C-alpha cells in the first residue's frame, strides 16, 4: 500500500524562471537525490507519482505551495522533510509533509491568495471599485481563441494594505490568472515577479481553508 504524502513547500529564486514542466522534472530529481522510497507509475515509462496542486506562472514566487507524492514504503515526516531539503536546489524549501486521504491537491484546490506589490501608486479605492462591480468583462485567452469573459465572479476578495491581497478562483474548475486581475488594478499588466502566491485553498462547506 502506498503512503500518500502532501508536501507543503515554497518556491522562489532562480526557480521562478523555469516553466512548470521543468519544475516538475527538477522536483522529481530532488526526490531521487533525496533517496525517498517513491512509488512509481506502471507502464512503459515508469515515473515518480508526484503531482502539483496548481502550476505557478513564470516569474512568480510561491510561499505555501503543495504537491502530492506517493511513497512505496513508510518514512517519518521529519525525515522526508530533512532529506528533501538537503537535496533541494536553491529556491526550493519543503516545510511540511503530512499524510492525506482522498482526492489529490489539484482536484480540491478552489482558490489562491496572491500578494501584489505594484511598482506604481494605485488609487486608494482601486480594490473597492472592482469589488463593487456587477461584472468585469475582459478579453480572456481560451483554447478556442480570445473571448470576452466576465471575470468578476472569479474575484473573491481584493484588499489594499501595504500590498494588495487578491483572493481569486484557482483550480481545475475555475481559474483566473492573477496577472489579469493585477492588470485591471494597475491599468497595465505588471511584471509577474511583483506577484507572490501566498496560499492555496480548498472549499469546506462555504468556507475556504488552506490546503
Amino acid at each position, binding site marked *: 500500500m502506498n503512503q500518500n504524502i502532501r508536501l507543503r513547500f515554497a518556491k522562489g*529564486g*532562480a*526557480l*521562478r*524562471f*523555469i*516553466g512548470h*514542466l*521543468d519544475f516538475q*522534472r*527538477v522536483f*522529481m*530529481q*530532488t*526526490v*531521487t*537525490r533525496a533517496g525517498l522510497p517513491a512509488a*512509481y507509475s506502471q507502464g*512503459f*515509462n*515508469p515515473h515518480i507519482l508526484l503531482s502539483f496542486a496548481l502550476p505557478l506562472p*513564470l*516569474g512568480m514566487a510561491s510561499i505555501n505551495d503543495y504537491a502530492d507524492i506517493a511513497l512505496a514504503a513508510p518514512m517519518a515526516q521529519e525525515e522526508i522533510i530533512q532529506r528533501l531539503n538537503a*537535496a533541494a*536546489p*536553491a*529556491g526550493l524549501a519543503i516545510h511540511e509533509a503530512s499524510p492525506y486521504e482522498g482526492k489529490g491537491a489539484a482536484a480540491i484546490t478552489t482558490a489562491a491568495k496572491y500578494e501584489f506589490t505594484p511598482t506604481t501608486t494605485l488609487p486608494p479605492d482601486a480594490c473597492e471599485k472592482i469589488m463593487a462591480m456587477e461584472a468585469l468583462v475582459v478579453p480572456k485567452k481560451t483554447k478556442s481563441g480570445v473571448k470576452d469573459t466576465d471575470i468578476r465572479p472569479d474575484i473573491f476578495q481584493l484588499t489594499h494594505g501595504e500590498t494588495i491581497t487578491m483572493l481569486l478562483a484557482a483550480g481545475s474548475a475555475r481559474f483566473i490568472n492573477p496577472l489579469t486581475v493585477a492588470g485591471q488594478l494597475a491599468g497595465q499588466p505588471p*511584471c*509577474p*515577479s511583483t506577484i507572490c502566491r501566498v496560499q492555496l485553498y480548498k472549499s469546506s462547506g462555504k468556507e475556504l481553508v488552506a490546503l
Partner: protein
Amino acid sequence: MRALSDSELLTLTKPGRYTGGDVNAVSKEITPGLTRFAFCFPDVYEIGMSHLGLQMLYFFLNRRDDVFCERVFMPWFDMVDKLQDSDKPLFAIESGNPLGEFDFLGFTLQYEMSYTNILAMLELGKIPLLASQRGDSHPIICAGGPCATNPEPLADFVDFFYIGDGEASLDEILNKYDKAMGRRTFLESIARVDGVYVPSLYEATYGDDGRISSFAPTSPAAPAMVKRAMLPKLGFFPDKFLTPLTEAVQDRAVLEIARGCVHGCRFCQAGFIYRPMRERTVPDLLAHAANILDATGHDEISLLSLSACDHGHFDELLDGLLDIVKSRRVNISLPSTRLDAKYLSALAKTQNLRKSSLTVAPEAGSQRMRDIINKNLTEQQILEGCYNAFLAGYDKIKLYFMSGLPGETIEDSLSVLELCDKVVETYYRLSYEERKRPVSVSVSTSCFVPKAFTPFQWAAQAAPEEFIATQQEVKGKLRNKRITYRYHDAKTAQIEGVLARGDRRLGKAILAAYQAGAIYDGWSEHFDHARWLAAFEQAAIDPGFYTTRQREADEILPWDFIDMGISKAFLLSEWQKSATSQLTTNCYQGCANCGLACNKAGLSPCTGPKNCSSPVDRKGGAK
C-alpha cells in the same frame, strides 16, 4: 548580482538559460587573488549543458581553490537584442559578472560553424575582437577542443590555443599565471607548455600560388613544433554533474568509458586526434556512475566512447552498471556502434522494454568505398547485423552515409540505395508472424568535409554543386517506399570545409561574415550562404583553394606545426593506401605504426580484450 532585472528577463522566451541556480553549480567567494575563468560555449545553453567536456572542465578547474570557473553560453537572439538595447555586457551565469572582469575566457571549439558565435560573445562582452587590440586589462582568450587541431583560422582572435587533453596541462598553465604579469609575458611563459599554441608568436609567409611557403616562430619563447598535451592514462572524473533547471538537449548523466579509438577510419578526425584508446577501469567507472547518479537524480546514464563495445571489459562493465541502475530505476543508453552480436546483446540487456530505432553507420554504400575509408565492414556484416536486430524486434533502422568521399563515383553513391534495398529484403527473411509492422529504413547522407590530422587532409572536397547533383540523382532513383532519404546541406559543408582546413588569412573573412550579421551558422535556419561568399570575396579568399583543391604531399599544411603524436608519414601512407582500397589493421589486430609508439611511450598498449569481437581483417592485415 544579476545583470538584468526580473522584468527584463521575463520578456525572454527561456529566461532559465541565463538565471543559473543549476544543481551542483559552484559558487566561490570572489577575492582579489582568485583566478576567474569563464568556460564559454559558443552555442545555446541547452546544447552546451549537454556537453561532457563542459562538465569535466568545470569541475576539474573548480577543484582548485585558487580558480573559479563559471559558465557563459551564446545568448539566444532575444537575449542578444536585450543586451544590445540595454547596453549591458554579456555576463557569466554563476556570478552575473561581465566577461570583462574575468582573467580567462576559454572557448570550446566543437564545430567550425560556431566560430562567428565566438566573435558575437566577445563583442557582447565588450571585449575587442582582435587579439592585437587587447591590452593587459582584458581577459586572456583561449580556445580548445577538436577544432583547435587546426587553430589557424581563429589566429587573429585567440590569445592561445590548447591542443589535447584538458587535464594534462591546464594546471601548469594556471600555476604560471599571475595577474600582475603583462599578457605578452604570460603568453611567452606558457608557449612551451605541452598543448599550448600562441598564434601571435608565429608568422606565416605565402608563395605566389597562395600556398604557405614558411611557418615559424618569431620569438625564442615559442617552439617550432607545438606538442599536443596528452594524458598517458585517464584519471580525473567529476563526482557530480551540473544538473540544469531548464531541460538540456541531452538531459542525462554521461560516463566517459574510454578516450580514443582503435579503428583507423580514414575520414574520422576523432579517430586520430584522440589516439591511443585509453580506457577507464571497470571499478573506477562503476564508482563514477554511482556518484553522478546520486548527485544528479538523472534517470538515464549514457556511455560515451568513440566505439563503446571495444572497451576491453565491456561485458563486465555493463553487468556492473546494470546492478547500479536496477535499484535506482535508471536507463542505460548506449552510443551506436558496430551492429555486431556484442552490441545487440548489450542493447537487449539495457533496453528490455522500449524498442526504438537502431542506428548503423556503414558510411559508404559500396564495398570499394568502405575499403577506401578503411571502415573494415562488409555488406554481409551489415545485413547480418540488421537481420539480428530485426529478430530482436527492431523495425526501424537508421543508416548513416557520407557523400563526396575521395574516389567516389556516381555508382558508389547509388549503391547506397542498393544496400538499403537489401536491408529491406533482409526484413522479409523474417517469418510473417515475426514482422509486426512494415520495416522503415531511414537514410541520412552527410557531405564529407576533409579534416586536419586524417589521411584525407590532402583530399579535394566535393563542390556544393557536385553534392547537390549526387543528392538529386540518388533521390530520383529511389523507388522503395520503405526507404526515406535525407541529406545534409551542401552549402554549409562548403563553408565548414574552408574553415576546417583554412589558414590564418581566413580571420578577415570570419570577421567580415560576422560583421555582416552571421551568428548561429550551425543552425540551418540562420545560415546564409551568400553572406559567407560575400565575406570571402571581401577578404580576397577563394573558397575553392581550401576545399576543392587536392593538396600535394610536400605542401606545408596550416596545422603542420602541431605534433599530434600521429606521424605525417603514417597519414600520408594511409592516404596513398586509400587510393588502392588497401585496408589497415586496427590497434587490436596489430600496431600499424601510426607514430605514437604506445609501448615505448609508456601508453597503455592496445592489446584489446581476450575475446575481441572486432571483425578480423578480411585481407590479412596489410601494413
